[in-house]
């Protein structure tokens, strides 16, 4: 089943064309990885999937992005879109409030105020993010006091708490140590049963380890999009081969 269908997407930052004629179909309940050198447009494409690029001045879009058949650049409620398409950022960005309030922020935003329900959501979300056992005794403590790896898993829990369908992850482990990274990779693999996950990564081994499909970007274009196995063992394009064998990038 296809979740996102991107057709002929062009994206401009002012006069600079950051994405050129992108065509991609992203399958539900799979992990799709975006790889490519810095500045190739992979994060830009990720951000255009929940319209976070609306926040960037001078950003303009041509083409179509369909989420379950609905054009997300049409006349839609952006807040509702972002509830369905959650996001985890490159640097862990917990809010300066308690761990509990961090996770409860999303549900409260969407109108849940009953204490019993919130308690339940906070616990399930933290459990799903595999961090409940570490944090259950300090839910009322500030989220800024936990380690970077824990903060990132907290941010994943926070994103899960609004019950999204898709999780966008923008290099979620690039600021973390190897142990935290492997914990988060395990978590991502577990989450794919319930969510569609799109992950931008600089780390090709990471793409191999966790993703089902991989798109390789270069200078704003999708050069190749295939199953991860094919991309890494049997690339069809020369640029892809050069990149994955480390000849540039």
């Amino acid at each position, binding site marked *: 089943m296809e979740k996102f269908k991107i057709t002929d997407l062009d994206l401009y930052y002012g006069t600079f064309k950051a994405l050129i004629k992108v065509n991609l179909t992203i399958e539900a309940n799979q992990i799709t990885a975006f790889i490519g050198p810095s500045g190739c447009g992979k994060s830009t494409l990720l951000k255009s999937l929940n319209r976070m690029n609306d926040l960037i001045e001078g950003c303009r879009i041509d083409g179509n992005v369909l989420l379950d058949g609905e054009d997300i650049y049409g006349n839609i409620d952006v807040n509702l879109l972002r509830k369905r398409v959650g996001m985890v950022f490159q640097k862990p*960005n917990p809010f300066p409030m308690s761990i509990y309030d961090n996770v409860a922020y999303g549900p409260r935003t969407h109108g849940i105020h009953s204490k019993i329900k919130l308690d339940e959501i906070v616990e399930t979300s933290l459990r799903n993010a595999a961090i409940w056992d570490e944090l259950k005794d300090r839910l009322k403590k500030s989220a800024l006091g936990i380690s970077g790896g824990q903060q990132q898993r907290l941010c994943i829990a926070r994103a899960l708490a609004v019950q999204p369908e898709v999780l966008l992850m923008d290099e979620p482990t690039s600021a973390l140590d190897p142990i935290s990274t492997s914990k988060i990779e395990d978590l991502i693999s577990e989450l794919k049963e319930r969510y569609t996950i799109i992950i931008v990564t600089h780390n090709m081994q990471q793409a191999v380890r966790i993703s089902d499909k991989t798109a390789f970007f270069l200078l704003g274009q999708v050069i190749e999009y295939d199953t991860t196995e094919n991309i890494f063992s049997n690339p069809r394009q020369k640029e892809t081969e050069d990149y994955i064998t480390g000849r540039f990038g």
Partner: protein
Amino acid sequence: MSTSKKTVINNNKKLTSKSKDPVSLILRILVWCAAALTIMILFVIIGYILYKGIPNLSLDLFDLEYNTQNVSLMPALINTVIMTILSITIAVPLGIFSAIYLTEYARRGSRLVKIVRITAETLSGIPSIIYGLFGLLFFVTTLHWGFSMLAGGFTLSIMILPLIMRTTEEALHAVPDSYREGSYGLGAGKMRTVFTIVLPSATPGILAGVILAIGRIVGETAALIYTSGTVADIPDSLLSSGRTLSVHMYALSSEGLFMDKAYATAVVLIILVILLNRISSYTAGKISKS
């Protein structure tokens, strides 16, 4: 074999040999003198006021009613509190909301933002006597409020508005964009993001600005003499005249009859101002920690 010569820096000097460069010595002395002088001036002023003022402090200075026997500063102290509350209630919401508009809602770098910012900066550079004259012409005369606490409060709130706007703007700018992104990413709208994430994170900075503004209100004379007048009693209503501590001091020393009492009043005023400054830097320190 390479034949290129290398530039060698002379490393033969002993580590213990101190540089005897005369320029650096002179500079060091100058810097030291400037620091010593600044600290000395501050201590001399405070010391002088304490020396002249403390012996003149007496209980009847704090009587509720002013007369020429007790020269009480109590009405002025109470007026200062009223004036502060009045100006702050007018200026703080206005300043905070306009700063929110400028940083969160207006398009970054738009003409309007630039104009408002230049206006605010110009306003903060205007001498307070000009505010006083404006208040006299507009609030006192044109609006027929007469010399009153209300006219003084409005004049002062115009005066501190740029200060509050600027500090609030800075505090809002200091909130990392990642907080905003995180909030939008969860499907929160602009309003919710600004009021539940951005504003609480900026509160210590805003508070520091407000306390700074209170310091200016407490220390202000020129803008008040022509607007809230110099009556030395607690006013019956906001439309009556009343003098604040600073105006009280100005009146005492310009009359020249109660110089001793003026010094005693100065002690109270200076303690008040130092206290406010300490609170301000304490809260400012709290932001940088978080």
